[in-house]
């Protein structure tokens, strides 16, 4: 568990994780799937796109940057592909016209080698700003997979927790100062929040990096304030999509961690005006100190166009600059 070692008055800007794939990546992934190009050729393009996104984040002065996950398809499948015991299953729908390949646990989960460390090192080599290490949490991998092996969900989740812990430790050894363990599924079942907490405890226990978890689109009225027991330094939450409804809860039970404040909707083409974003930040400042606040989009931006994502991120930075000047 770690504090934040960044310059400035707080309200640090960052991103939740994924950024849009440029069309040359989408095309190259299709060609790779059809066997028309080899792995190395795709990888070169992914490195180029990663570099472009890091340069963009640096150009607008982002405090904590992400590698954009250009080389990942889906946040669970990416890990499932590398972990023995998980197989990639068929397509299922997540919402609207969006589908993902839902993994199937067919045997005990293990880890043969680090999964994310090489990409993290590459991304960090491109910038002076700290790059977040990005992992998918054990509870979410379990919840978003089918289970044909484990007798209980707890057995499944705790095996995953040990694997993700090993990955996090490797990221920290490589130099990561910020490690995010996404648990978007954490708000799904209130009767399993204890399991989320137990599993996250296994992952973060050996870490001294600043740890973050991102949770989204759930029934926060029931999950809050208990979610504050999740053993991480920062919780990143969506506020734009839910119209800042959680602030009412903060009035009753103070938010005790660092917050990642999602201020733009990632499922809308609409560009939020700078002033609207600034107003959202000001409303939140009534409950949380600026030095405890990170500002970012609601969720990963991968479903937006490149232009929409750049504009949304630029507007966030401009809004932050306005509010910083008022502190």
């Amino acid at each position, binding site marked *: 568990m770690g504090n934040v070692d960044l310059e400035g008055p707080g309200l640090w800007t960052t991103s939740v994780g994924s950024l849009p794939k440029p069309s040359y990546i989408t095309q190259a992934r299709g060609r790779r799937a059809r066997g028309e190009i080899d792995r190395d050729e795709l990888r070169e393009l992914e490195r180029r796109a990663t570099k472009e996104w890091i340069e963009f984040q640096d150009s607008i002065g982002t405090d904590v940057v992400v590698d954009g996950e250009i080389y990942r398809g889906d946040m669970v499948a990416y890990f499932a592909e590398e972990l023995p015991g998980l197989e990639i*299953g*068929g*397509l*299922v*729908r*997540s*919402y*609207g*016209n969006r*589908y993902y390949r*839902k993994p*199937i646990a067919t045997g005990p989960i293990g880890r043969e080698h680090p999964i994310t460390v090489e990409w993290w090192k590459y991304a960090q080599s491109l910038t002076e700003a700290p790059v977040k290490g990005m992992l998918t949490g054990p509870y979410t991998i379990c*919840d*978003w997979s*089918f*289970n*044909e092996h484990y007798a209980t969900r707890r057995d499944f989740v705790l095996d995953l927790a040990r694997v993700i812990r090993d990955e996090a430790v490797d990221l920290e050894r490589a130099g990561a100062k910020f490690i995010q363990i996404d648990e978007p*599924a954490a*708000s*799904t*079942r209130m009767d399993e929040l204890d399991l989320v907490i137990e599993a996250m405890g296994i992952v973060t226990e050996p870490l001294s990096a600043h740890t973050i978890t991102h949770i989204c*689109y*759930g*029934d926060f009225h029931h999950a809050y304030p208990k979610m504050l027991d999740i053993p991480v330094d920062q919780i990143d939450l969506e506020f734009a*999509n*839910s*119209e800042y409804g959680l602030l009412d809860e903060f009035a009753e039970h103070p938010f005790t961690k660092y917050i990642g404040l999602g201020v733009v*909707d990632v*499922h809308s083409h609409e560009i939020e005006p700078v002033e609207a974003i600034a107003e959202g930040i000001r409303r939140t400042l009534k409950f949380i100190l600026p030095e405890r606040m990170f500002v970012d989009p609601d969720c990963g931006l991968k479903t937006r166009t490149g232009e929409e994502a750049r504009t949304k991120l630029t507007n966030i930075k401009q809004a932050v600059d306005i509010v910083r000047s008022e502190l």
Partner: protein
Amino acid sequence: MSVQTTVIGSYPKPPPEGGTFVLRKTLHALERDDTTPDDLKAAHEELTREVIAEQEGAGIDVVTDGAVRWDDIVTPFARHMAGFEVGGLLRFFDNNVYYRRPVCTGPVEWRGPATVEEFKFAQSVATVPVKAVIPGPVTFAHLSIDEFYNDHVKFVMALASVLAQEAFELQAAGATVIQIDEPALLGAPEDIDLARRAIKLVVGELTTAETILTTYFGDAKRLGGEIFSLPVHIYGLDFVSGPENREVLKLAPQGTRLQAGVVDARNTMLEPVDDLAATIGSLAETVGLENLWVAPSAGLEFLPREKAQSKLQRLAQVAKKVGA
């Protein structure tokens, strides 16, 4: 006499592995203005044909159109009535599936049938009865935000009155089985009296159609025997996510007709034949063979296409054996 087999509603939209996903492509193209609504209609109809043929091929007695046009059980109706806007994404119960939450901003009013045309098409390409599915008024209210009535009872009753017209039109179009989905009622036992009034209104004008009150994703323990007082012909309970429904079933009056969810619509593991036969056999013993319908535990859209197919084949195969 064998146990009747049916499905709950949705069916996987993606093609079997390796096939072309025409519906997804068409929806993307429509978003970019690269195609016409006629193409989308054709894609929907083709997929309806396919999923009905698959259900019939597996041996299912009462099928659905697979809800191939729907993203979820409420927005197709909310978009069609007056009084609603469609808002932000929210998790659909405890699934990794999200829906856009309807927001009620004005009086809820009927603006003509929402699903009658699609029902008629499905029935025209099926050789067995097609079940029409509508959301229950209590679940509809729980999945929505009410910014207009500011009164749960009034909101539910307003929805019930629109759903009653939909149900009436579906019957007029030839629906012999109408299912009313009320999964949210399981977590809202305080709404049981309201549900009774609201569902009475929904089914009030029906004369020939059989009605099924369906629940899923959990047990009806908190409703207890009260669930069997709702004014419908058949009660749908999920025995996979709600094993305690066995206890609830003991509270059912003699002669209660049951639609039992017995194969897991949310996990790929195929139920062993013997286990499934034992489950169906014991339910048949409890309610009587003639009163039992069996089904997956929920809509099959949570599974990949091939897995959904295998589950249905297994269900029909075992159900026939139990009835024999």
